């Protein structure tokens, strides 16, 4: 019922505004004649202009990665390969239907292989594990986008299909983006995947109104969904449907005000990419260029409660206690909390001469752990390892027995080099890019720093544009262990956020050929 009211309200507003705008968009030919009889409006299709146009392009990307993962860290290294190969064949097909509409498909076929896994043996020593199947490294077909846009009028269009709709100006991260698979802050161009949606959009000269209904993919095979919104009827043995809808609704108003891009967003999500049910959230973004060189932007997302998993401090006082608590030791205890949480991203990008640019963005993650909550998280992780050893349990069995430590996310989208899953509250993203260095080289360095304990990641990359159709890249991901004394103190040891991760470094080389 609430959904119907929401849809009716939003649809009514859009259609009534579009109707008001309609007199402006009289038949295109008449408008053109009124402006200047000697001119031909672009909407009057000259006979020689093709009614249908087809364009295609894409790339072939090959990436080889090697790295080192420690088995002694709190997060197990068992499923982290030390060698990995990825080949992605991408095709982008764009069909134009004069001024009536268009269709676009952006699909990739990804072949991956991974080798050399290491873990902790029963004797507490690092040992080589047999190569095994890990879901993340399976070959996959990924339909990043597949949509059609139909222009109902000059000022109103309808989009149906899978599309990445992104409104926030954040470069490394977008706290106001609740619809799409998360992007990789070290290379935001890698994430091209969107979500299945229907969108009504009304673009005016200096403002736009968008209404979006997005469906969560509950199940898919080879990039093709077999379940949207609800789980499919026929599930494999062992899987059960929750018989509940999974979707998101969004209304967004964009305005160009005093040379500033301003977006106001209203979301309502139902078990979409988190555990919130019929949860309203408000977003606000702005972006402006100062002194013709400094771009500043901000994103704010306000909500009540948190969908994050929190560890019950009472359950992590001893091994016996966590075993007694079982799955109750961790859960979404603040889901119905009435406390206001405001996720904020504030950033600036400065352009130097020669097109070099530096950007700095501060991200406040209002759902992140404070020092005590992070301490409980680390204690739970420590006891879970002990319990697993004691009982000889696999990590899947541990999750079943003690609850999942990390939130269950949505569609991961395209394969990413790095996943940003913030546990704490304060982060800094620093990016330096210098393109056309000696004409054909681009240097790019990204630093992700957790400000609570100064742990993070450094990701330098060098790209050589050998030809206009071929790029060679080499880069690395280096974990910054941070300052242990600023981390959680558990059992006489200091644990930092990125110090929990087993991967100490990774280096990669890649070749991308465009066509």
């Amino acid at each position: 019922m609430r959904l119907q009211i929401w849809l009716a309200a939003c649809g009514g507003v859009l259609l009534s505004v579009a109707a008001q705008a309609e007199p402006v968009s009289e038949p295109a030919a008449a408008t053109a004649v009124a402006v200047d009889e000697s001119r031909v409006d672009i909407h009057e299709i000259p006979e020689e202009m093709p009614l249908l146009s087809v364009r295609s392009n894409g790339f072939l990307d090959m990436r080889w990665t090697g790295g080192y993962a420690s088995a002694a860290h709190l997060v197990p290294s068992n499923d982290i390969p030390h060698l990995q190969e990825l080949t992605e064949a991408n095709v982008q097909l764009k069909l134009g239907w004069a001024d009536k509409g268009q269709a676009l498909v952006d699909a990739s076929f990804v072949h991956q292989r991974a080798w050399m896994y290491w873990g902790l043996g029963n004797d507490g020593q690092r040992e080589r594990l047999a190569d095994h199947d890990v879901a993340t490294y399976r070959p996959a077909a990924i339909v990043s986008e597949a949509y059609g846009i139909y222009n109902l009028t000059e000022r109103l269009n309808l989009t149906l299909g899978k599309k990445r709709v992104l409104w926030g100006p954040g470069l490394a991260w977008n706290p106001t983006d609740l619809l799409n698979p998360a992007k990789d802050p070290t290379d935001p161009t890698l994430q091209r995947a969107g979500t299945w949606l229907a969108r009504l959009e009304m673009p005016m000269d200096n403002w736009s109104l968008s209404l979006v209904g997005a469906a969560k993919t509950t199940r898919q095979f080879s990039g093709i969904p077999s379940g949207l919104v609800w789980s499919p009827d026929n599930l494999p043995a062992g899987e059960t449907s929750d018989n509940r809808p999974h979707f998101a609704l969004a209304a967004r108003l964009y305005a160009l005000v005093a040379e500033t891009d301003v977006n106001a967003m209203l979301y309502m999500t139902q078990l979409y990419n988190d555990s919130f049910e019929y949860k309203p959230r408000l977003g606000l973004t702005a972006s402006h260029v100062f002194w013709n060189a400094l771009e500043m932007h901000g994103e704010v997302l306000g909500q009540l409660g948190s969908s994050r998993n929190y560890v019950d401090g009472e359950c992590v006082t001893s091994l016996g206690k966590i075993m007694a608590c079982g799955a109750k030791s961790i859960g979404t205890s603040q889901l119905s909390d009435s406390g206001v949480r405001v996720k904020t991203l504030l950033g600036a990008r400065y352009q130097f001469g020669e097109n070099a640019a530096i950007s700095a963005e501060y991200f406040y993650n209002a759902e992140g752990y404070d020092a005590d909550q992070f301490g409980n998280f680390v204690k739970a992780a420590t006891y879970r390892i002990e319990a697993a050893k004691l009982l000889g349990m696999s990590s899947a069995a541990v999750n079943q027995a003690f609850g999942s430590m990390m939130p269950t996310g949505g569609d991961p989208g395209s394969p990413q080099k790095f996943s940003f899953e913030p546990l704490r509250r304060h982060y800094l993203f620093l990016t330096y890019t210098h393109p056309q260095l000696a004409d054909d080289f681009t240097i790019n360095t990204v630093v992700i720093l957790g400000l609570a304990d100064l742990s993070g990641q450094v990701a330098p990359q060098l790209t050589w544009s050998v030809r206009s159709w071929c790029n060679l890249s080499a880069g690395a991901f280096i974990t910054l262990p941070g300052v242990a004394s600023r981390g959680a103190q558990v059992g006489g040891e200091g644990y930092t956020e990125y110090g929990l991760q087993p991967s100490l470094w990774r280096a990669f080389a890649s070749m991308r050929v465009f066509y």
Partner: protein
Amino acid sequence: MKFLAKALTLAVGVLTAGPALADPTALDLMHKYDQIMGPENFDAVTRMTAHRDDGTERGYKMQVLKKGDDKFRITFREPAAVVGQELLRQGDNLWVYMPNLKRGVRLANRDSFQGGDFNNADVLRVKYEADYDGTSSADGDAWVLELKAKNSNASYDKVKIWMKKADMLPVKGEYYTASGKLLRKAEFSDVKNFDGIVRPGKITMRNMLATQRWSVMSWESLNTKVNPPATKFVLDDLGK
């Protein structure tokens, strides 16, 4: 008899010459330049070739759409690595759309255009009347237009343009910093008739800070008989 003939010739000359034409003002020259180089509305296909220090070159093909004084949209068609990339200017606002980012990002006017020797404003902001104050003078068979930026969105602090007296077409330009340092030199050549508009079809921009580099912008087609819809120049239309 000779005296009579001279007197008659002089009298006829004076009578037929009429009042002497006044020299064009800087505003007249700016207006003419803007009319020729940035017609009110157009849909053009252009190529930019950037020649680099090492003797190699990079080429781009793009579709340029202009509406009124301050609406520009450029869509890159070649090479494959930048296909689908777009630039949009609306008033003093400039955005770049990256197909892999799936959204527009704000840009500054003075950034280099695709790493070549033009900057974004050279291509997307052809309206000297709006951005410069000027003075005019004569230099042989050309008028010289000297411009000084009157706002921060102008692409250069000082500009000098030579326009032929005969047809008022630009022939060369010089672009300076506020301190008078020469940054770029332009040559306007290859005059063509684009469906009734006679204008240079090629601009060669030389980088005076790195003299081995230069870029050439040439127009393959220029259709001024269009009136693109305003919806083509809004941020949300990028990528479509």
